[in-house]
């Protein structure tokens, strides 16, 4: 297999960024202008939001449990075991809740979007949609974008809540901490800036998951093998972008709210 020249490779990447930007801008403009496909939006909300609840609950819960177990070892050395609740709550709400929820939804839904739209592309269903007078971006991408951003926000809250609950369970039943003290320190340690930071991240992650998943799906070529390739690319690119954007949002939020 011959390697492409650097010039061809760079041109391809620039074209890909341009196409992704156009798709994202068109999908956003679809939110504000008719026609709007409400039935598709609610179907996607059900699929992305309700359908992802079990994995988000399990991920959040067990992450909170592990966090409590791991942190208590370090906190013991400083005689600060009572701060376990604070550490779990801050970690879950500011960082682990939003990022892990984003990564889990990326694995489940960016992959789903890429494979579904990719299959439609290779079987000419996207062309058929255009031939029947419907813009596939408005019909397929915009509803997924709205549904992912909206539902990821609430899924993150659920992950945070179950993470704190998981930490509480471990702290009380395995580490022998006082339940009231755990919940009190958790509650007291969280300030307005932490919650805003934690709930801003899923808005960006949701946008990345929907647009990247749909972009790779709509650019699929090469039959069923191409669908598999598009699915893998969608998960890899959206996961990496979620982590990169997480860093940028964290820095921006520290700049706004401090610490």
């Amino acid at each position, binding site marked *: 297999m011959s390697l492409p020249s650097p010039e061809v490779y760079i041109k391809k990447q620039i074209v890909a960024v341009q196409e992704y930007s156009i798709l994202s801008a068109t999908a956003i403009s679809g939110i504000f202008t008719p*026609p709007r496909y409400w039935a598709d939006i609610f179907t996607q909300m059900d699929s992305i939001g309700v359908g992802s609840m079990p994995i988000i609950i399990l991920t959040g819960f067990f992450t909170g449990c592990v966090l409590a177990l791991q942190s208590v070892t370090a906190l013991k050395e400083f005689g600060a075991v009572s701060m376990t609740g604070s550490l779990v709550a801050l970690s879950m709400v500011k960082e682990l809740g939003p990022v892990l929820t984003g990564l889990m939804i990326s694995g489940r839904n960016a992959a789903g979007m890429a494979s579904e739209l990719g*299959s439609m592309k290779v*079987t*000419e*269903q996207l*062309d*058929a*949609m*255009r*031939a*029947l*007078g*419907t*813009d596939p971006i408005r019909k397929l991408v915009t509803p997924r974008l709205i549904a992912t951003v909206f539902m990821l926000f609430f899924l993150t809250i659920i992950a945070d809540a179950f993470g704190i609950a998981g930490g509480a369970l471990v702290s009380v039943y395995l580490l022998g901490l006082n339940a009231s003290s755990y919940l009190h320190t958790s509650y007291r340690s969280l300030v307005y800036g932490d919650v805003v930071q934690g709930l801003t991240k899923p808005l960006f992650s949701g946008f990345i998951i929907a647009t990247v998943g749909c972009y790779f799906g709509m650019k699929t070529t090469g039959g069923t093998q191409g669908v598999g390739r598009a699915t893998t690319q969608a998960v890899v690119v959206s996961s990496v972008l979620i982590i990169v954007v997480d860093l940028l949002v964290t820095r921006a939020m520290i700049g706004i709210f401090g610490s």
Partner: protein
Amino acid sequence: MPEATLSPGAQTVDPPDDKTPVVEFNDVSITFDVKPVLQNISFSVDRGQTLILLGPAGTGKSVLLKLANGLLGPDSGSIRIFGQEITTMPERDLYKLRARIGMVFQESALFDSLNVEDNVAYRLHEEGVPEAEARARVVEALKFVELEQTIDKYPSELSGGMRRRVSIARAIITGPDLILYDSPTGGLDPITSTTIMELVMKQRDVSHTTSLLVTHRLQDAFILATHRFDAAAGMVELPKDGPNHGIDESTKFLILNEGSIVFHGSTEELVHSTDPWIQRFLE
């Protein structure tokens, strides 16, 4: 085959005395990556005419059809549909123009998540046609393709030939002024292919819709050129008398090879062509 007629669609139909070609290609070329797919293609299709696109696999027949519907844009040249230049037309306006064009895709391209009724009524639903009227028109279109019993089924429950017939019903439900058939018999057995060609013929002879048909099966192309659908008898027949040995004058052939036109003319001209490549191709 029972007689059936379709109610005209909601779209505006040009006056019958309009002599503007329905499809007009002028010096159209398109290249994918570095490979030229179509080069300097020029032809036109008049109102009521059926143009059969023939040629070996990979010569750009399906690409030409997608260009005609604005699904692809050419690198150079001009394409006029109903007299309107579509190469510079914004996508938003193309969606309106496509309301007058029906297209049957190579692999049917039915939406997997919708049942037959919703697939066939897709355009009606998009246009906001009331549910009762849409259902009645779906039943009418499905009767035309003799598949009214499949109305509640999903595409995965249908055979390849049935999917192709549903695809035809979806294309004709609005009474389009132009129909594009992309290999409607591709991958089907000879009996099913004949059924599909009879439907194409029926649409041509009952509604006199202008159409472009891509096929790689010569027998299908010649059946279409030599047979007629008798609306009164409700069946396909081989005309024995009439001018030009009963061959349909409105059905023309266009043969592509390696992205260029090698023949454009009537059935008679094709059969009597002395071009060695065409003779070999027909054999």
